[in-house]
């Protein structure tokens, strides 16, 4: 029992524990009917993962350095549109321009934040609105179709019934991110900047560079998500993924990323995304209505919010002692 509690409370292990718990609970609810543990379910989970995973990775990276990149929602749409418009003959060109736009947007916002000492909420909010505006201008408020059907179908074709090119690409990005964070000093620098920026700067770390790089990466990651999504839908629309922000944030937080920075990892974020995707696909696979997914997600997030609350122990102890004294 203690062991289980430790797995839940310890933030590094928690995302995997939660994911496992969700799988077990849904499997139990399935009662052996076989709807949950089927290839179809896994495939739909992985397709969702491909859509949300990279956005969550981008947002999660910005949270690691104690910032919050609201603009990921905007870059998803913009990159998708750019890719669809430029990638008709050569899809790789679209990828290049789309991801490039993500990098540029991240770098510009990072520069504004570091040079002018501004907080990320304001800058990325402005960035979000600007990016959405740019998307509208580029598409002239219409849905643009992507005629290259081969690419669209190819991206979503099931491989072995489990994954598709899109989900493999997303997984690959996560693996690369995880390797980079562990085996190079990039991971150390990011965690240091998030955990104590002033101290890191004094120690000689160029925290400005770290922040700009993180926002470039977050822009690139969200852009790639947008590009792949637009290609696979065969169209790009200005209003892609309007509610992506809370989902991405929820995935990162369930994945162990701390909103105040300094804690989290790409693998944890992947687990968080998977958890939410499993909840969504798994529950509908066994016939439960989609709003249960929202309720369960909300409950999990609330539990994490309370467990991670800095003054939980203090209040509880003070209350306990007050009660004891009143009785005496």
């Amino acid at each position, binding site marked *: 029992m203690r062991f289980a509690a430790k797995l839940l409370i310890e933030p590094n292990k928690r995302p995997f524990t939660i994911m496992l718990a969700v799988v077990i609970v849904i499997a139990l609810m399935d009662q052996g009917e076989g709807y949950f543990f089927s290839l179809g379910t896994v495939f739909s989970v992985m397709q969702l993962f491909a859509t949300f995973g990279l956005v969550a990775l981008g947002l999660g990276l910005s949270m690691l350095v104690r910032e919050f990149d609201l603009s990921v929602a905007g870059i998803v749409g913009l990159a998708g549109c750019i890719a669809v418009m430029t990638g008709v003959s050569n899809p790789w060109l679209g990828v290049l321009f789309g991801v490039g736009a993500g990098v540029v947007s991240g770098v510009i916002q990072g520069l504004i934040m570091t040079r002018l000492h501004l907080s990320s909420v304001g800058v990325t909010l402005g960035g979000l609105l600007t990016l959405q505006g740019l998307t509208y201008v580029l598409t002239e408020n219409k849905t643009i179709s992507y005629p290259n059907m081969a690419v669209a179908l190819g991206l979503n074709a099931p491989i072995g019934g489990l994954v598709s090119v899109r989900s493999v690409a997303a997984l690959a990005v996560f693996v690369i991110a995880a390797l980079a964070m562990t*085996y*190079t*000093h*990039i991971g*150390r*620098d990011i*965690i*240091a900047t*998030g*955990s*104590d920026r*002033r*101290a*890191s*700067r*004094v*120690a*000689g*770390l160029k925290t400005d560079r770290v922040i700009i790089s993180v926002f470039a990466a977050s822009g690139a990651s969200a852009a790639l998500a947008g590009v792949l999504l637009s290609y696979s839908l065969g169209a790009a629309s200005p209003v892609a993924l309007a509610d992506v922000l809370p989902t991405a944030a929820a995935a990162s937080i369930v994945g162990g990323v701390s909103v105040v920075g*300094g*804690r989290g990892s790409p693998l944890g974020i992947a687990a968080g995304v998977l958890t939410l995707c499993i909840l969504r696909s798994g529950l509908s696979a066994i016939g439960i209505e989609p709003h249960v997914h929202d309720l369960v997600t909300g409950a999990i997030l609330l539990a994490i919010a309370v467990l991670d609350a800095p003054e939980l122990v*203090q*209040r509880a*102890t*003070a209350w306990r*002692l*007050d009660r004891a*004294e009143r009785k005496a």
Partner: protein
Amino acid sequence: MPILAVDGVTKRFGPNEVLKNVSLSLGAQEIRAICGENGAGKSTLVKIITGVHAADGGTVLVDGTPTEITDPQHAQELGIALVAQELSLAPALSVFDNIWLGNREVPLFHRRKELRERARAALEKVGLEELPLEAPVSRLSIGRRQLVELARMLTRDARVFILDEPTATLSDVEIERIFAALRALKDEGKSVIYITHRLGEVFQICDSVSVLRNGELVGTRRTAEIDRAQLMEMMLGRSLREMYPRYDSRPGQPMLEVRDLWVPPVVQNFNLTAQRGMVICLAGQVGSGATEVLRALAGLAFDSTGEVGIAGQPVQLRSVMRAQRAKMQFISEDRAGEGVFLRLNVGQNLVATRLGDHSRLGILARRGLRATAAKLAAAVGVDRARLRSQADELSGGNQQKVAFGRVIGGDEPGVLLMNEPTRGVDVGARADIYRLIRQFCDRGYCLVMASSDIEEVLGMADVIVSMYRGRQVATYQRGEADLHRVLADITHPVAAA
């Protein structure tokens, strides 16, 4: 040849001449203390040496060669390493990662065996052999963290270590470890500049001491050749007595009674009685429990237990609001973090705790508040013209006065709890604050203060309670104890109570 020297250095900030023609030189294997009151120019001198400021006049010499130190990075390359009071370690990272954090020469794949060996070697030199490289820094005590920071400097081939008030937040065991590390560094051929207010430590660990006063170098002496009183005289330029107001304390009615106070994890079984008009000083270093007792009485310690009574009425702990209702007020040592509302103006700061007195049905009576603010400002000597300026524009001393103003001025004098009342405050303001303390005690307040500055304790206290590791060692009335007695109590008491 001296490793580091400054010759005729002058520095001006606007119309103020902060350093006037200062010259000193540091040899190899020398531990030099730099002492001086707040505002004497120590930090400006260090900033020039570490490349933060450029001197307006004079030269800095490294290994005998005049050098212009352009920025902190350059200073590090020259082998000058600063360990500031706020450590520059990232708590979420391991010891190994922190040692190499920010180091330019670290390659992309950063966990090479060679780097681990060098980190291990550096840790050994500072006495941390048994510390695992992967230990998270967040789990280390402050003393250990400082040693990790020293180890980091070693991996950057530092030759001159500048330590700014290194022991202010350390327990005695950790202080010993730092001293051992410094002696080891000295044997290795390094030099140390040791900035401190703690004169005892100057004689314990340093070979020599340079004293700054009002921007000028008063002199450099070998510690073997002077004594504490002479050092104090050099620092203050006047005798000790003029700082602390003369008075005759007449103890009034019993005011505060503390029984069986426990503050986990430090304070055990603390007891105290105090009368109106008295200044009680809890003397002790960091970790002695003096600060913890005050914060518990103030209601800021969520797990403290004990019996507290004010003027006969019992007061429950663990709540600031309950303490305030019982007229027990707290002034923190951390002004910026816990004392002053930087974005609000001085007037709003002063009346922060008085809102209840001036509101009816939740609506504020602004005129009454303004009048009270003016009254409080006058009482503590803050210029009325300042009432509308933002608090972050004030000096440290004025901010401390505002903090003072906030807690006095109720109709009934109560208990004031002050933690390190003059930390970071310059000489002039210190004398003002001591005077204010006496004034309010004369009016009937009872003041309990915690201080690690023995001179301050001896100068101000009617009753001294010395503390060590969470326990009371001894209680002295005024005149019963001298410096050595109290110092012995708080560093290594013969018989802990």
